[in-house]
């Protein structure tokens, strides 16, 4: 406010007639600690400036001072007016400033959280209002956590170090956590208490068996829950249902009772539904899409869903229009008559013109390049707007795994005059690189350590320029995986692979190259090397999604080469590479061409509820035995191997928490000639968790069979007595899964299974119905950083020759295919 110093001048300020002056002088009074010159500079006023008094210049100057937050109060006075010159004085009251604040009675971990909530800024003046808001914020914080009796006391104490400053001591006595003893309803006749209680998601009774359910009382959540109760009534036709009163009372020191008094009102039904303003579709078509019959219980919620957006999927009225470009479509249901318990509805429709997409843009991609996202989208410029395409595009973006799936935004910005729409997607990047460090028991090798690094959003293009490394070159959607496994000298394995998901940038043709090297040595107690095998390999593969017979099919080809070099004892042990018993080193080559045709229609990967996945793969080497006699069978490995895997998911409960998974797996291995025996490569071993270590040497396929020891269901070569593995296997599984926690950070499910399988050494003995059976239970947890972990306990029903019949525990890491 502008005050006139009474002794200054005798020309009073006329508020109706602002006058222009020139500033003749500015003074600051009342400041003990603050510097007057600084304050004057903060006001933004300068001697000699023109100024209108009264006017907004002075108001702005006061605001600037206020904004600093360092003064208690400020007023401006006109000390004198000499002709055109005006002299101003800013009179201020200083208040102590906050130098720091201290919590007492607050858990260390909660201090940071609280500090964020209370918004205290050091250096600002401390006012009563500030202390009050702080106190309220702290109290509210504890209230939300269920401490209804928390006491907060803020005591300012002068800071001995800094003049005119105070330290705020925020003392908190949390008291006991208050839990809900009892939730009661009065006046509900149509719907039982139990049903209503279940609708209150965050207000729950404390019961000894509800270990996982929090039963604290949170006022804001309580309001939501009351609304949920009414929403439920509305959805059942009780359009007028209301909560007349609610009371929350103490039943004891730390227990609450909650009582809701409900007026249910009458139950209503739909009667006639009529359509107006529709030209594209007739009333009959619209009625059949709407799917609400005369006589159905009246539910505004259901009506809205069927009109606007039905998350259950399928076609709703809006999608009918909005998938065909009618972006400006609106529908307004109006209750035209309410007679007795019947309601007539008139749907007033505005169809508008069809809109075409003009611009498609992405924002928020601070790491991932535009094209990586754009190429996944179904919404492209020039196309008619389609809401389904928009939603599918969102799903594709989420599927990339580079962005927070909860924060993918889609914003169509229509331009009705032009008949176009711009689509803006917004994303938030999330970290998606994985580092694995693990140690595991590796059968004959003892402890094997693994270091793995997977970069899921790598950019080879940017890798050439160090300026783009922050901290690694990323953003082009490529995958780089590096894996090192070692156990000292005895076993080392290195692999590196690179994948480009869109080779050539035209289509989703994934291309990958990989190299690997493995060394395995047999070392005696006195550190002497008895034998070794070295495998050098490289592979190249190309995979693509097919459009026929449908979009779920994909085909992949991969060509790989492996060279095996054995020395010492290992020449005899592996029996390949050389037929000369006196050789000190031998080598063998394997060139194989793997072709896989697969189809997957799973609804998601971590906990599939419906859909199936089928895969047929053929792994074949050149048919040396048919080509020429000159190929040494020890040097050129020959086989053809067929694998078939099928897996179906069927939901057993409506919510999709209970799911049945049935699977069938087959594998066959053979050579191209009757004269050539099937070698030690690529054979099958069944039993246990199916996690084998050591499969790298001869490419043994480990298949789980729970209830039996690892690799135990495998025929023994009668000549050598070695467990070399079979050449044909079958396996059938039925698994019932129950989802315990759908939390994407840690998805947990438990399962019960029954399975059966067998493994044969020759085709003469092959019998797909002679099986070793088992059953058991288990649990899995999926964590985004680690992948899938789990354990099973299985009980065998049969005895495999050479092994004991007893229950087995199995641990597993990673998703098992078979």
């Amino acid at each position, binding site marked *: 406010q502008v005050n006139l110093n009474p002794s200054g001048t005798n020309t009073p300020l006329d508020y109706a007639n602002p006058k222009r002056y020139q500033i003749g002088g500015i003074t600051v009074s009342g400041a003990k*600690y*603050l*510097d007057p*010159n*600084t*304050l004057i*500079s*903060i006001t*933004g006023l*300068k001697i000699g400036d023109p100024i209108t008094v009264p006017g907004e210049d002075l108001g702005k100057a006061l605001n*600037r001072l206020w*904004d*600093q*937050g*360092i*003064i208690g109060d400020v007023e401006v006075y006109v000390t004198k007016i000499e002709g055109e010159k005006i002299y101003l004085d800013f009179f201020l009251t200083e208040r102590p*400033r906050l*130098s720091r604040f201290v919590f007492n009675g607050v858990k260390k971990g909660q201090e940071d959280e609280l500090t964020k909530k209370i918004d205290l*800024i*050091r*250096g*600002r003046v401390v006012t009563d209002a500030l202390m009050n808001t702080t106190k309220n914020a702290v109290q509210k914080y504890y209230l939300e956590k269920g401490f209804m009796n928390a006491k907060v006391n803020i005591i300012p104490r002068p800071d001995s*170090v*800094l003049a005119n*400053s105070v330290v705020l001591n925020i003392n908190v006595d949390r008291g006991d956590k208050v839990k809900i003893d009892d939730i009661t309803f009065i006046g509900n006749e149509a719907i039982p208490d139990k049903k209503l209680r279940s609708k209150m998601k965050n207000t729950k009774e404390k019961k000894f068996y509800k270990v996982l359910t929090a039963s604290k009382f949170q006022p804001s959540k309580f309001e939501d829950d009351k609304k949920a109760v009414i929403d439920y009534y509305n959805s059942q036709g009780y359009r007028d249902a209301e909560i007349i009163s609610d009371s929350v009372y103490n039943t004891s020191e730390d227990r609450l009772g909650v009582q809701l008094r409900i007026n249910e009102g009458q139950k209503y039904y739909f009667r006639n539904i009529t359509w107006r303003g529709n030209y594209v579709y007739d009333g009959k078509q619209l009625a059949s899409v709407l799917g609400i019959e005369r006589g159905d219980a009246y539910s505004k919620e259901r009506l809205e869903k069927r009109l606007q957006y039905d998350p259950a999927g399928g076609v709703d009225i809006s999608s009918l229009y909005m998938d065909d470009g009618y972006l400006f479509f609106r529908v307004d249901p109006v209750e035209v008559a309410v007679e007795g318990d019947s309601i007539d509805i008139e749907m007033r429709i505005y169809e508008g013109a069809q809109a*075409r*997409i*003009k*611009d*498609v*843009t*992405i*924002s*928020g*991609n*601070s*790491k*991932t*390049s*535009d*094209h990586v996202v*754009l*190429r996944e989208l179904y919404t*492209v*410029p*020039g*196309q008619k707007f389609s809401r389904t395409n928009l939603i599918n595009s969102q799903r594709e973006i989420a599927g990339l795994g580079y962005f927070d799936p909860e924060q993918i935004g889609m914003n169509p910005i229509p331009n009705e005059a032009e008949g176009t729409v711009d689509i803006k997607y917004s994303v938030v990047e999330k970290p998606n690189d994985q580092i694995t460090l693990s140690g595991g028991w590796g059968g004959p090798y003892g402890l094997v350590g693994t270091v793995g690094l997977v970069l899921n959003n790598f950019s080879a293009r940017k890798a050439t320029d160090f300026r783009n490394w922050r901290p690694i070159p990323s*953003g082009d959607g490529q995958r780089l995986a590096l894996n090192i496994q070692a156990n000292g000298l005895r076993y080392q394995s290195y692999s590196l692979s690179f994948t480009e998901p869109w080779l050539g*940038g*035209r*289509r989703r043709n994934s291309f990958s190259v990989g190299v690997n090297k493995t060394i395995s040595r047999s070392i005696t107690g006195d550190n002497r090397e008895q034998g070794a095998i070295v495998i050098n390999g490289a592979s190249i593969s190309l995979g693509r999604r097919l459009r026929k017979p449908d979009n779920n099919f994909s085909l992949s080809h991969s060509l790989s080469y492996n060279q095996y070099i054995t020395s010492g004892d290992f020449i005899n042990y592996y029996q390949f590479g050389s037929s000369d018993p006196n050789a000190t080193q031998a080598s063998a080559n394997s060139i194989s061409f793997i072709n896989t045709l697969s189809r997957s229609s799973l609804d998601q990967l971590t906990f599939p509820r419906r859909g199936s996945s089928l895969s047929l793969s053929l792994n074949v080497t050149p048919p040396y035995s048919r080509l020429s006699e000159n190929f040494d069978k020890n040097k050129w490995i020959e086989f053809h191997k067929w694998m078939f895997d099928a897996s179906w998911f069927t939901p057993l409960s409506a919510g999709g928490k209970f799911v049945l998974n049935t699977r069938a797996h087959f594998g066959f291995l053979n050579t191209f000639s009757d004269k050539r025996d099937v070698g030690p490569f690529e054979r099958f071993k069944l039993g246990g968790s199916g996690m084998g270590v050591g499969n790298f040497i001869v490419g043994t396929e480990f298949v789980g069979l729970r209830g039996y020891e690892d690799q135990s269901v495998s025929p023994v070569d009668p000549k050598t007595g070695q467990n070399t593995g079979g050449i044909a296997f079958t396996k059938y599984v039925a698994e019932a899964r129950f989802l315990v926690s759908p939390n994407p950070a840690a998805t947990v499910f438990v399962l019960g299974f029954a399975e059966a399988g067998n493994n044969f050494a020759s085709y003469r003995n092959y019998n797909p119905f002679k099986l070793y059976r088992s059953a058991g239970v288990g649990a899995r947890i999926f964590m985004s950083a680690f992948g899938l972990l789990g354990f099973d306990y299985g009980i065998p029903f049969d005895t495999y020759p050479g092994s004991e019949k007893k229950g087995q525990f199995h641990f597993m890491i990673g998703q098992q295919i078979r």
Partner: protein
Amino acid sequence: CGDYNKILKSNNVDQKYEAALKYFEKKDYYRAGVLLEEVRPLLAGRVEAEKAAFLYAYTQYYERLYATSSELFRNFFDTYGRSPFAEEGLFMHAKSLYYDSPDFNLDQTSTQTAIVAIQDFLNRYPESKYEEEATKMYDELAAKLERKAFENAKLYSQMRYYQAAVTAFSTFQREYPSSTFNEEAAYLKIVAQFNLAEESVPEKQRERYFDTVGFYQAFVDKYPNSKYLRSAEGLFDKSTKQLERLKAPTNTANVEQK
């Protein structure tokens, strides 16, 4: 200037401030920044506050924390609009935003903010000694936005979404009429339109070849010496032949002109 940790732990504001100035002079921007951040709230209302705010912004700038420094420079300008450093502050605000702007194929929100900031600076200080540098930054940022729009349109061509490519190139031409990419965009638009016509159903082919011819005519008028002229002409020839084959009963005047 003594032990850094000791100063950091002390409660003496003046000593901390002095030490911060010394660290700043020695180009130890990290330590200067930490100390200035500590003392800044306690200096509010004192003479030193202005300098502290300005130098603190610079420490963040030199530490390459451009998002933070841009905000600090802006706050400095808003608070101390009368300061002799106000102009430099506003310029540094824009320059921080300029450095904060990422590659063209990433989110360009900060590029747009930077462009607005530079415009604002040039409007306020048209005679500034930073005028030349500011203009250069402006041009560079504007070119980045052009490149983004152009490359994204090109992506549709590459993926053989021809209709999308034609739409995107047309939008590009309208939004960036003076861009250096315009010649290539005009050419690629002809290519996309021609390919679209080629793979269209017979009913739509005629109209689409006509459009190809129209795009070609606009192209030769605007870029008579273009390096793409030969291949564009080839598409024009093919289109006219197709049109002849499709033989419309009426209105072929458009084609015969050439």
